[in-house]
């Protein structure tokens, strides 16, 4: 009976009596969710354009952040380091297209997926070799990002907003808007969608697959860099981020693999749900539930709607 009370009543009583704390938790979840959504966005971009499920997106985030910090530590000014890091991501995109994807056209998607796992191991090894395995702190101030915090009086209590979190949410919003514009209004964006629809049809109207793939991996690289900066500003830049980035997978499941709004909403649902569950119900189960909550939600969700919230219905033919 007490257990039932603890599960079904007590958390809600707590929420009602301390609305400021609830808001704080929701805000934390919102920010985490934005970051998940950003990582998921990288996956969706590549999946939409080439049907490759890019497992290496997580390590690309780490790689981008590390090269940014690495350049800065080598004495390059912050804005130039940012450009150089972008250059690194561009080179990486071209390299991946040349060395890996070009040779794997028409392969089974699972084979492509496993190739990106291999790729991510290669990037982990080379990243540690170049930048060293130790944790680095992000150059938040040097990049002109706001630090500090604002205390808001809400509902008889306080809610603390970190400025960097607000910036993260704003930048994520701008990035999504820019991507939506890019996909819908520009020439290359249209070509990208054509490739996503049908490789052969796209080829037959004169779209270069290789070029498109390099472009889309570069776009994913830009998203990775933005994610890396934001995540690095909240916690430090380290290779542990790569495991956290796996959380984008349940986000994708919720949102559907091909939908950009799905990635955003999925990210927010997972981020906020996870924080709420950890804070209000986690204690009952010995805490640490954040590690698996997202996956289990995705698992249950899959049972009822295998194509995700916004995904296209899966039709199979023999």
């Amino acid at each position, binding site marked *: 009976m007490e257990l039932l009370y603890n599960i079904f009543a007590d958390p809600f009583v707590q929420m009602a009596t301390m609305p400021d704390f609830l808001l704080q938790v929701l805000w934390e979840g919102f920010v985490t969710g934005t970051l998940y959504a950003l990582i998921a966005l990288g996956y969706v971009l590549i999946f939409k354009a080439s049907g490759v*499920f890019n497992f290496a997106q997580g390590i690309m985030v780490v790689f981008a952040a590390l090269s940014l910090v690495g350049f800065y530590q080598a004495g390059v000014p912050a804005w130039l380091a940012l450009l150089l890091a972008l250059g690194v991501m561009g080179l990486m995109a071209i390299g991946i297209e040349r*060395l*890996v994807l070009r*040779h*794997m056209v028409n*392969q089974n*998607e*699972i*084979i492509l*997926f*496993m*190739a990106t*796992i*291999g*790729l*991510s*191991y*290669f*990037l*982990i*090894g*080379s990243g*540690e*070799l170049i930048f060293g*395995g130790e944790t680095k702190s992000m150059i938040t101030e040097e990049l002109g990002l706001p630090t500090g915090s604002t205390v808001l009086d809400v509902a008889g209590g306080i809610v603390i907003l970190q400025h960097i979190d607000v910036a993260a949410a704003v930048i994520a919003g701008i990035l999504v808007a820019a991507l939506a514009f890019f996909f819908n209004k520009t020439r290359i964006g249209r070509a990208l969608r054509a490739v996503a629809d049908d490789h052969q049809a796209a080829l037959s109207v004169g779209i270069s697959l290789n070029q498109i793939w390099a472009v889309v991996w570069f776009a994913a690289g830009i998203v990775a860099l933005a994610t890396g900066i934001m995540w690095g500003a909240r916690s430090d830049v380290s290779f542990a981020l790569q*495991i956290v980035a*796996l959380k984008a*997978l*349940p986000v*994708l*499941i919720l949102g559907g*693999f091909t939908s950009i709004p799905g990635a955003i909403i999925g990210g927010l649902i997972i981020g906020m749900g996870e924080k709420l569950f950890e804070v209000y119900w986690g204690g009952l*189960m*010995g*805490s*640490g*539930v954040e*590690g*698996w909550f997202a*996956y*289990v939600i*995705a*698992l249950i969700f*899959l*049972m009822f709607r*295998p194509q995700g919230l916004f995904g296209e219905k899966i039709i*199979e*033919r*023999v």
Partner: protein
Amino acid sequence: MIYREAGQFRTSYKQDSAIFPILQDRIAIYFYLFIAFIVIPLFGSDFFINSMMIPFLVFALASIGLNILTGYTGQISLGTGAFMGVGAYSAYKLTTYFPEANIILLVMLSGFFAAAIGMVFGLPSLRIKGFYLVVTTLAAQFFLEWAFIRIPWLYNYNDSGAIEVPQREAFGIIVTGASATPTVRYLVVLSIVVFLTWIASNLIHGRIGRSWMMIRDMDIAAELIGVRPLYAKLSAFAVSSYIAGVAGALMVFFWLGAAEVESFDVNHSFLILFMVILGGLGSLVGSFLGAAFIWMLPIVIRAIPKMTGLDINASTVEQINFMIIGALIVFFLIIEPHGLARLWAIAKQKLRVWPFPY
């Protein structure tokens, strides 16, 4: 070159469906078994047996488990590490409750717990596949990892949170714990691995294995011609998790001696997936080759700088190892998606017809 199979005719269905239809292949198998059972225990050093042969066999067994699921049934899984953990923890609990029982029997029993858990997490595979399934196996991985830490009953409420292998006997010989000799532990592991490989081979070549392969090649078509996906997929999950569970129990009881949750983390799942990919998807020989390759590679990389006098520190070796494995995965998937097993088969065929290639 070395042998000719001329004059060996198959005169019955039984002979025709034999796994090793050629006499020389059968001799080769007996020869490998002879080396593994007699020569290595007699002449192998403790270091060689303890840090090369035992882990190789354990990982080979885990790879066979994953290969049944991924290579034969086409369901990709990133939860192998956790299923190994289920095997290890249940063997530990079993031996706590039945200290007098034969530990080998308990290890074999522990696999059934892993099989049950594997089937639960395999249920979503009936509705979903591909990447979606990867997420559900990741759910298994992270949930079970959490359970190994947060349920103290699993490690008998001890302070370290690790499972320590007690000293246990089988057939009057000490086989686990600190006072068991490497040779004894090696022989136990080898026997179990050989036995389970034999079972797995028979399953794969039989009716059930064929239904797995049909599901892999095209599940809807398989369903249309009468394979029940429910039975085929769940049995693949069960067999795969059983083998992985036994491998996990062997790993802790006969190799590590003590284990924490880190021994079953997601990196181990990746490691075993790599062994399967490099060795060859859908090949038992490949599981052994892949395990040998990935386990020996860092040892070789560590040995090279010593021989050439180069000074490379341990973490650099680790990083280079990561890079080589990653590059090899991509390379193999591009050049030879069937892995080392296929290279082995090609080499054998070339030797067989040499010097007359036609």
